[in-house]
C-alpha cells in the first residue's frame, strides 16, 4: 500500500483542527488487522561456508526445529536451497522462507561462488517484476519471494575478512540488506572480538561495502538502533540444546570449561540480533527491499530493455508509448526480414527457372538433332526401298517376258496340271502339301509336310547355289530364311499363313546375281 508522505506537509492541503472525535485514529489498527488476516512474508538468505552454523542459528532464532540436514563439503557448485515454513505466534502468521547457500566456499576455485547467489536474488526480483507488469495481476495475493535480509556469516578467524567475503558482499550490497554476523563467536575472546569487529567494519568501509543500517529516523526506535549500529557485526552463538543453569533450562553450549549461554548478553550478541532482526526492524527490512533494492533492479532492467521516461527530445514518454514504439519497430523488422526472404526466394526461383530453360533448350536442340538424323536415315532407307522396288519391277518385267516365252510351249500342260491339282484339293488330315513349281526348270516337286516338318530346301528346287532370294508376297525379309551364311536356303513354311486353296508365293532366286528365276509355291491344304 502506498500512501503519500503526509508528514512532509503537502502544499495542496491545509492543516485543520477537529472539533470532536472523528475516529480515524483507528486507521492503523484497521490496516494492521487486514495484514494480520493476510499474514506476513519474510525471506532470509544465509550465506556462509559449510559448517559455520547457519542452520543452527536459524533454529535458535526462531525457536524451532527446521528440518535440516548436513551438507557435504564436496559440492561442485554453489547451490541455493530454499525452504518455506509457516510459523504462528499469537495471532500473527508468518510465512518464513530460509534460503541457505550449499557449498559456499568449498570449491577450489571460488570465482563463481557469488554469481549463483546474485542470480538467485535477481530471479526473485524478476518474478515480482513480471507479476507487476502483467495485465491481469494479483499482487496482493502474490507470494513475495524477494530476499528481505541477508545474514552473512563471517568465520571467526579473529584476523580480518577473507577476500571471498569482501567480494561477495560488494556484489550483494546493492541488491539486498546485508547484516554481517560473526559465527561461532564462542571461539573468540572478548578482546580479540572487539579488535575483530573494528577490523571488519573498517575493511567494509574502505572497500565501499554498504551493509544494512538500522533506521534511526523514528524516535521510538532511533536510540536503540543507533546503539546497535555501533555493535555490528553481531557475534553470535547458536544452539538448540538446553542446559540446566540454576533452576532453569536455557539454550546453551556445554564445554568442559564452562557453559556458553546463547541468550546471555554478556556471552554473545544473539539476543541483540534477534531484537534487531525480528522485533524491531522486520518491517523496515521488508520496506527497504521493496522501495530501494527492488526499485533499483526494476529501473536497471527497464532501462536495459530500452524503456526511458523521456525520449531524446527530453519530452516525457510513457512506458506504453515506448512499448508500442518497440513493438512497432519489432514488427517492422519482421516485415523487412520477410520481404528480404521473399525477394531471395523469388530470385532463386528465377535462377532455377533460367537453368531449367537452358536445359530445356539443350534438350530441344538434341531432340531436333536426333530427329534430323532420323529423318535423314529414313529418307536414305526410303531411297533404298525405292531402288529396290525398281529392281523388283524390272525383274518382274523380265519374268513376265520369260514366262511368255515358256507359256507358249507348256501352256496347255501347265493348265491341265494346275486344274488337276486343284481338284485334288481338300486334304483333311491336317497335312500341308506343298507343290513347288520351278518355272525355269519346268519341274514340279511335291512335298508333304506334316507337323514338324517345315522347311523346304530351295536349292533343291533350283539345283544350284543361290546368292539372293526374294520372296513375295509381303514383308518377308531374308531373315526368314535360315542358313544364309551357309548358302543353304530353307523356306520356313510355317511363317506363311496359308489359308486358301490357291495360295501362292513367288520366290525369285537370283543365281549368282546373274539371272532371275522364279518358283511358284502352291499350298494345298
Amino acid at each position, binding site marked *: 500500500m*502506498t*500512501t*503519500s508522505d*503526509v508528514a512532509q*506537509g*503537502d502544499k495542496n*492541503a*491545509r*492543516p*485543520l*483542527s*477537529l472539533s470532536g*472525535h*472523528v*475516529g*480515524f*485514529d*483507528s*486507521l*492503523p*489498527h*484497521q*490496516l*494492521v488487522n487486514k*495484514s*494480520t488476516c493476510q499474514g506476513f512474508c519474510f525471506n532470509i538468505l544465509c550465506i556462509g561456508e559449510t559448517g559455520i552454523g547457519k542452520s543452527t542459528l536459524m533454529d535458535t*532464532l*526462531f*525457536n*524451532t*526445529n527446521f528440518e535440516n540436514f548436513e551438507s557435504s563439503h564436496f559440492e561442485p557448485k554453489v547451490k541455493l536451497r530454499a525452504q518455506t*515454513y*509457516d*510459523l504462528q*505466534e*499469537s495471532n*500473527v*502468521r*508468518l510465512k518464513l522462507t530460509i534460503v541457505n547457500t550449499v557449498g559456499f566456499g568449498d570449491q577450489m576455485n571460488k570465482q563463481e561462488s557469488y554469481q549463483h547467489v546474485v542470480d538467485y536474488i535477481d530471479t526473485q526480483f524478476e518474478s515480482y517484476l513480471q507479476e507487476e507488469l502483467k*495485465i*491481469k*495481476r494479483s499482487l*496482493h495475493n502474490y507470494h513475495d519471494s524477494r530476499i528481505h535480509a541477508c545474514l552473512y556469516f563471517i568465520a571467526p578467524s579473529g584476523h580480518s575478512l577473507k577476500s571471498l567475503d569482501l567480494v561477495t558482499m560488494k556484489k550483494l550490497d546493492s541488491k539486498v540488506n546485508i547484516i554481517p554476523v560473526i559465527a561461532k563467536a564462542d571461539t573468540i575472546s572478548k578482546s580479540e572480538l572487539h579488535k575483530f569487529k573494528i577490523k571488519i567494519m573498517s575493511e567494509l568501509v574502505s572497500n565501499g561495502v554498504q551493509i544494512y543500517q538500522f533506521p534511526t529516523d*523514528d524516535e*521510538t526506535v532511533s536510540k*536503540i538502533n543507533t546503539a546497535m549500529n555501533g555493535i555490528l557485526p553481531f557475534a553470535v552463538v547458536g544452539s538448540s540444546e538446553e542446559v540446566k543453569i540454576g533452576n532453569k533450562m536455557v539454550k546453551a553450549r556445554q564445554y568442559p570449561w564452562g557453559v556458553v549461554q546463547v541468550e546471555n548478553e554478556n556471552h554473545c550478541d544473539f539476543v541483540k540480533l*534477534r531484537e534487531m532482526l*525480528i*522485533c524491531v*526492524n522486520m*518491517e523496515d527490512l521488508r520496506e527497504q527491499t521493496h522501495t530501494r533494492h527492488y526499485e533499483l533492479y526494476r*529501473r536497471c532492467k527497464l*532501462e536495459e530493455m530500452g524503456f526511458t*521516461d523521456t525520449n531524446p527530445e527530453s519530452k516525457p514518454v510513457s*512506458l*506504453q*508509448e515506448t512499448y*508500442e*514504439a518497440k513493438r*512497432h519497430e519489432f514488427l517492422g523488422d519482421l516485415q523487412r526480414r520477410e520481404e528480404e526472404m521473399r525477394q531471395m526466394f523469388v530470385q532463386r526461383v528465377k535462377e532455377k527457372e533460367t537453368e531449367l530453360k537452358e536445359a530445356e533448350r539443350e534438350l530441344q536442340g538434341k531432340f531436333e538433332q536426333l530427329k534430323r538424323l532420323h529423318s535423314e536415315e529414313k529418307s536414305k532407307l526410303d531411297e533404298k526401298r525405292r531402288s529396290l522396288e525398281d529392281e523388283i519391277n524390272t525383274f518382274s518385267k523380265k519374268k513376265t517376258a520369260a514366262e511368255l516365252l515358256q507359256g507358249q510351249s507348256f501352256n496347255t500342260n501347265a493348265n491341265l496340271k494346275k486344274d488337276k491339282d486343284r481338284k485334288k484339293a481338300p486334304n483333311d488330315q491336317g497335312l500341308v502339301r506343298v507343290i513347288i513349281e520351278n518355272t525355269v526348270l519346268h519341274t514340279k516337286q511335291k512335298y508333304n509336310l506334316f507337323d514338324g516338318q517345315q522347311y523346304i530346301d530351295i536349292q533343291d528346287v533350283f539345283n544350284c547355289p543361290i546368292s539372293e532370294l526374294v520372296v513375295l508376297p509381303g514383308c518377308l525379309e531374308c531373315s526368314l530364311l535360315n542358313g544364309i551364311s551357309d548358302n543353304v536356303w530353307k523356306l520356313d513354311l510355317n511363317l506363311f499363313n496359308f489359308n486358301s486353296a490357291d495360295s501362292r508365293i513367288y520366290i525369285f532366286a537370283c543365281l549368282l546375281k546373274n539371272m532371275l528365276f522364279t518358283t511358284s509355291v502352291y499350298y494345298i491344304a
Partner: protein
Amino acid sequence: QAGLADTCSVAQTPGHDLFGYVGIEAVLDQMRRKTMKAGFEFNIMVVGQSGLGKSTLVNTLFKSKVSRKSCSPNYEEKISKTVKLQSVSHVIEEKGVKMKLTVIDTPGFGDQINNENCWEPIVSYVNEQYERYLKEELYVNRKPRIPDTRVHCCVYFLPATGHWLRPIDVEFMKRLGKIVSIVPIIAKADTLTMEERQEFKQRIRQDLKANGIRVYPQTEYDEDPEDRILNDKIRENIPFAVVGTDKEHQVNGNKVLGRKTKWGIIEVENVAHCEFTNLRDLLIRSHLQDLKDVTHNIHYETFRVRRLNESNLTGESEGWREKNRGGE
C-alpha cells in the same frame, strides 16, 4: 519493545511449532508505527443535487470545515450551468494519526433541466485519477510513494422522496458502481417517519437489485465468513438515513449535535433519530481501510486491465495511430 511474555505457538498444519518466544508479533507494532509516520490519504466524493446537505454532512462527518463551501472565502450559492468537479484537501490529525482528506464536490449534478449525461464529467474524473496513478506506476524512475488521488468512496445523496429511485439515480449508480465504491444515503432524512423510512429503504434496495447496481460493501469482495456476516448486517441497513448539522444544542444537560425544530431536537448522533453514526462508523471507523483496498485491488486493477488491453489492441493513445497502421 516486545514484551517477554508467554504465548507459544498454536500448532497449525503445515506450520511449525515454536518452542518459545520469538517476537514475531512485534511486527504488528512496527507496521503500526510506520504507517502512522507515513500518514494516510482518503478521497471522498459527494454527489447529489444542490440543497441536499452535502457540505453539511461532510463537515459533520469530519467534525471540521472540510467542505468547499467552508473553504472558499467568497462563496456564493449559485447553481452552476455544468457539472464541474472541485476538490479540496485538508490534513487532519487525531491521536498521532495524520490523514490527508480530499473532498470532491460535484456542483451542478442533477440541477439542470436536461440532466442527460450529467454523470460523464464524474466518470471521466474518476478514470482520470486512475490514469494518473497508472502513469506514475509505469514510470521507470518511480516515486517511492505514488500520490493517491483516486476516489475511494462516492457518497450518493438520495432525496427523501419516499417513493422509488429516480431515473437519474439509477443511471448514475449503474455507471459509477462499476468503477468506484458507491455508498448511497438518504439525505435530509428528518422528513421521513420511521415507517416511511423503512419502506423507502426497502424499495430502494429492491430497485438497486432490480437494476443490477452494486453498492458498497459489494458481496463479491467479502474475504471470509466473518467479513460476510459483518457486511451482511450493513447491507441489510443501507441506504443509511442521515441528518447533518454542525450546530450544538443542549439536551438533558449534554451538548449534542442536532437540528433544532419547533417540534423537537433531532439528535444527529442518536441512533434512534438517524443513522449518521452508522454511516460514520462504516466510512471512517471500520471500513476506511477496506474502501481504500477495494479501490486499489479491484477498481484500479479493472481499470488497468482495460486500459492496457485497449492500448495493445488498438494502439489508441496520443500520437501512435499513424505508427500502428503498418504493424497490424
